[in-house]
């Protein structure tokens, strides 16, 4: 139940975005991908759930094994892959519907429940798991766009969890939030790693320090260093990693 990436190269038009990426993302741990802007962190995430397919002029080479299956070359069913790998994006993006329908949307398209009662229970359970159920009590049928940004991000997380994924990809999921909401979401990720494998792109080194079990440091499309957080943060092997951690560039 891990993700293994071998010799992954991603080209977008004439740009070589990811260069020979070789990493293993262990299960039920938080792996933080760090690195300066434009180093390919988000591209790597979008490759794992093949959202990259929608980008114009993209070319993928190499192998990405999800649960032992190569999702690049084996004719994987993309919709099933995406259901299995949830995504929480940088800016919360509720769907244009009610709070309830946002969480129920994925369940409905994946035909997870036959009875409405089961769906209602499932939606409530997932809202509760992100600490939102109490906050939206009595207005669960109101538009999701009326929630605060922090609540919207937790709703998006609940929506991802509702389709019962095995992995969660988080692309700077706390960067658009106020400090209190960011802390709430961050704590949620720590709690969720008991059940899910979490791969998180973050710009905040402090956040990675607080929650990462593993760290991948990227620079200009290359993976410079990866390994347990303790090792990468406290005993970095590569000079570039040392400079980045020391704040020489960002």
């Amino acid at each position, binding site marked *: 139940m891990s993700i293994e990436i071998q010799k992954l190269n991603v080209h977008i038009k004439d740009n070589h975005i990811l260069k020979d990426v070789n990493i293993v993302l262990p299960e039920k741990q938080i792996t933080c991908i760090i690195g300066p802007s434009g180093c390919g962190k988000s591209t790597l995430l979008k490759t794992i759930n093949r959202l990259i397919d929608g980008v*114009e002029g993209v070319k993928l080479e190499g192998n990405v094994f999800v649960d032992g299956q190569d999702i690049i070359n084996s004719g994987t069913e993309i919709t099933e892959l995406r259901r299995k790998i*949830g995504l929480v994006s940088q800016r919360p993006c509720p769907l244009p519907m009610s709070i309830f329908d946002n969480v129920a*949307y994925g369940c409905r398209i994946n035909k997870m429940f036959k009875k409405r009662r089961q769906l209602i229970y499932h939606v409530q359970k997932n809202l509760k798991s992100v600490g939102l159920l109490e906050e939206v009590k009595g207005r669960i049928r109101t538009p*999701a766009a009326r929630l605060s940004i922090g609540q919207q991000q937790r709703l998006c997380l609940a929506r991802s969890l509702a389709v019962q994924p095995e992995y969660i990809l988080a692309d700077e999921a706390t960067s658009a939030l106020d400090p209190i909401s960011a802390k709430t979401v961050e704590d949620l990720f720590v709690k969720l790693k008991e059940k899910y494998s979490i791969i998180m792109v973050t710009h905040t080194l402090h956040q990675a320090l607080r929650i990462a079990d593993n760290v991948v440091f990227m620079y200009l499309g290359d993976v410079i260093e990866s390994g347990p957080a303790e090792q990468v943060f406290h005993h970095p092997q590569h000079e570039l990693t040392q400079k980045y951690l020391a704040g020489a560039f960002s």
Partner: protein
Amino acid sequence: MKIARKKKLRESVAKLFMWCAMLVVFGLVISVIWTIFSKGCKAMSWDMVSKLPGGGFYIGKEGGFLNAIVGSLYIVGASTVLGLIVSIPVVFFLNIYLKKNSKLAYVARLAFDVLFGVPSIVYGAFGFTIMIYFGLRTSLLGGIIVITLLIIPIFIRTMDEATRNFPRDILDASFSLGATRWETLKVVLRQIAPGIATATLLSVGRAIGDAASVMFTAGYTDSIPTSLSQPAATLPLAVFFQLSSPIPEVVDRAYAAALVLTIIVLLLSISGRFITNRFSKNKV
């Protein structure tokens, strides 16, 4: 001090200019409505909207223009539905399926812009040519087809504008839950629902008020059509024919028909606004 005074003066002049422009527009709307109501009310009666033209209606005798009301509603209703059925897939194709910088999308948008600007009489002439080619006579079907052609560019351009600003993140959010493009279209539809409502309103407004395109295609008749092959009367033509009469009673009836037309458009505008607000509540 001098600069501050100059700025204040400039601000006041600009404000005055805006007020004047507002007053001109308001005045125009009010004078149009006042003229239609004051002249139309004189000839308006229950018979006008509930009866077909009787013998001698066009020389001021009994009857009404129910034929034109029903004919207009038939044509506008059918062409709006047909227009929506054709336009929504085109808008989805342009914005969701084609890539952002697609040449096909560029050419298609250019073509719709051109069609948008084509005068309605040209649509009428085009429809007339087609009907002659197929040996058709003026009919309800002819009117429906030409009005549909007339409003499709309005539908597409208005909905396209609403969809072009569609947040791409919503698509990714839907795809990342395992949705197909087809399933995602339902989400897009919810987001652009206000745009569709606005497009429908503009299209219906244009369709119901256009005389030139239906003159040669739908024709005019004193009865209510019972099949698509029969000619149909329309309110704009009822106004047009009666307004050119030398008999004052008939001219007043033209204003009564114009009044009904205005009331229908007003009702549509108000209900359209209400529907747009309702659809907008979920918009992200």
